[in-house]
């Protein structure tokens, strides 16, 4: 695992994730909308996409659906990153096809390791 795309419209959360992952030695890219994700994926193939659910215009579940529909991106590991932490949410995200789920708030000390664990699982 080397390249990670962090997708979050909340600039603070996105910058925190980028900071922690860069500190962990990864190449990190950023996007703040589904549109930016699709643009990025036209000429990049990250190992992991960390995808916020509550995004403007196209939500994270729809973004994932389109990633899975595209033959060149469907194998990318996509992890849901979201503050939706109500009962049944984890199951809902798994059913949508996410490879893993990380609830917000981000826990700075364990964040990079949590992603690596999901990537390796």
């Amino acid at each position, binding site marked *: 695992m080397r390249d990670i795309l962090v997708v979050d419209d909340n600039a603070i959360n996105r910058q925190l994730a980028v900071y922690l992952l860069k500190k962990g030695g990864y190449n990190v890219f950023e996007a703040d909308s589904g549109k930016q994700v699709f643009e990025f994926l036209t000429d990049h193939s990250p190992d992991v996409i960390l995808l916020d659910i509550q995004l403007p215009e196209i939500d994270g579940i729809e973004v994932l659906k389109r990633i899975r529909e595209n033959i060149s991106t469907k194998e990318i590991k996509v992890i849901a990153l979201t503050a939706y932490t109500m009962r049944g949410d984890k199951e809902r995200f798994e059913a949508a096809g996410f490879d893993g789920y990380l609830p917000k708030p981000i*826990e700075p000390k364990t964040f990079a390791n949590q992603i690596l664990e999901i990537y390796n699982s």
Partner: protein
Amino acid sequence: MSRDDGFEELKTLFAEDLAEKIKALQAAVTDSDWNAISKISHQIGGTAKSFGYPEISAMAHELERSAQKISLEDAAELVKKISGMFVL
């Protein structure tokens, strides 16, 4: 710049952002805009704990979950509590 300086810089950005979000939340309560209350509290809840404010995260999640199920007065009270917990 050391690694810790990077995190301190992020904390400053977070503090500025939170101050703005609390103002927006107060305005949303004044406007009875439950969509905005839910959205802003969702964002606060998803961030504050990472920067050392777990109580604010918990309170914001409570506000998000109870949006539209409680009175505006109770929502205003929760926003007041969130605002009171945040000391720069």
